[in-house]
C-alpha cells in the first residue's frame, strides 16, 4: 500500500512537471495525489464500493486543494489536476475504445459503464468538495 501511494505521488509529480508547475507548488501537488490515492485505498479496504471510493478520494483531494489554493493564493486546479491523474479513468476510456476496435463488445460495455461511474463519482466529489469549501470560506471575500 505504501508503494502504491508512493507511485501515485511520483505519477503526480511527473505530470506536475509536464504542466509547468514550479518547485513549491509541485511539492504540494504531489501530496494531493498521495492523499487522493490514500483515501481510495482505505475506502476499498473497508469494503466500500468502487464508486464511493472514488468519491471519497476526489472529495478529500478537492478540500485539500481548495485549502492550499487559499494558502498559496493560486487557483485550485494547480493542485487538483495533477492529483487527479492517478484516479481519472484514462485507462477506462482507452479500454472502451480498444474493445470497439477489437470488436470485443463485452469489454467495451463493461469498461464503458465503469468509466462513466468512475468519472461521475469523481465529478460529484469535486463539486461537493468545492461547494463545501465555498460555504466554509464564504466569510472571506477573495475566492480563489
Amino acid at each position: 500500500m505504501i508503494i502504491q501511494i508512493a507511485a501515485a505521488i511520483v505519477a503526480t509529480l511527473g505530470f506536475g512537471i509536464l504542466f509547468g508547475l514550479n518547485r513549491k507548488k509541485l511539492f504540494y501537488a504531489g501530496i494531493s495525489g498521495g492523499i487522493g490515492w490514500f483515501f481510495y485505498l482505505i475506502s476499498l479496504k473497508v469494503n466500500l464500493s468502487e464508486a464511493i471510493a472514488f468519491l471519497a478520494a476526489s472529495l478529500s483531494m478537492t478540500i485539500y486543494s481548495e485549502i492550499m489554493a487559499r494558502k498559496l493564493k493560486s487557483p485550485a486546479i494547480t493542485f487538483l489536476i495533477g492529483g487527479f491523474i492517478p484516479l481519472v479513468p484514462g485507462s477506462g476510456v482507452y479500454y472502451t475504445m480498444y474493445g470497439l476496435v477489437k470488436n470485443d463488445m463485452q469489454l467495451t460495455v463493461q469498461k464503458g459503464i465503469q468509466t462513466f461511474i468512475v468519472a461521475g463519482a469523481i465529478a460529484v466529489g469535486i463539486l461537493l468538495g468545492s461547494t463545501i469549501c465555498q460555504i466554509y470560506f464564504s466569510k472571506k471575500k477573495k475566492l480563489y
Partner: protein
Amino acid sequence: MDNKNSISKEKIEENSVLFVACYMGRLILQNGGETYRTEETIRRTCEYYGIKANSFATLNTIITSIDSSDGKRYSKVDRIDSRTLNLDKVDRLNHIARNLNEYKISEVKEKIMEIEAENKMSFRKKILGNILVGSAFAILFKGGIRDSIVALISTSILACTDELIKDLKLNNFFVNFIGGVIAAIISLTFFKFNFIDDISISIISALMLLVPGISFTNSIRDIIAGDFVSGISRGVEAVTTGIALASGSGMILSIFL
C-alpha cells in the same frame, strides 16, 4: 476588488480594456484554465475598469461584448485553435487578474505579453516528467519492476517523438494515433522476448500521458454544473482521443500479436 484607487481613475479607453480582458481570457483558456474561469476573468477585468461586460466561453471560442459609456456596444470574438496544459501560466494570469489595482493598463498588457512569449517546456524537463509518469503508473496498475522499465522506455521515446513533430502542427488525432502505435510496438517487442508477462500494463502506462482521463472527468463535471456546451465538447474530445489511441495500438496488436 471594489476599492478604486488613483490608477483606475486615469482616462481609460474602453476598447483597450476589451482587448486586454479578452487577451487574458484567451491565454487562460489556451493554457488549460476552465471555461468558467475564463468568463469570470474577462468579466471581472472589465468591471474593475467600470465597464459592464458579458462573456461566453467554450473550448473553441470566447465571445465578449461590452456596453460602452457612449451608448454603443463593442464585441470581440476569439477563436481558440489549440490548447495545452500549463498551469503555471494560468496561475500567474489569474494572479494579475485579481491584482489589477497594482498595475496600469499598459503594464498589464506588457505583463500578459511577457507570459505569452515565454518558451515552452525544456526537453530535459519533459523527458523527466514522462519517465516519472510512465514508470509510476506501471506500479499503480499492479505491474512489476519489468513492466515499469518497459513503460519508462516507451515514455522516453514518446517524449522524443513529441519533440520531433511538435513544430509540424499536426492534427491531434494523428499524433495520438502515432502515440498508440509507438507504445504498442515497444511493449510488443519486449513481450516477444519474454521480458514481460502482460503486454497491456506497459502499453497503458505509457499511454497515460495521452489518455483523456481529465477531459472526460471535466466533461462530466461541467455537465453537472450546468455548463452543457463545454461539457459535451470536452466529452467528444475525450472520446476522439480514446479512439485515436486505441486504433493505433489496436492496429499493431491485431497485426503482430
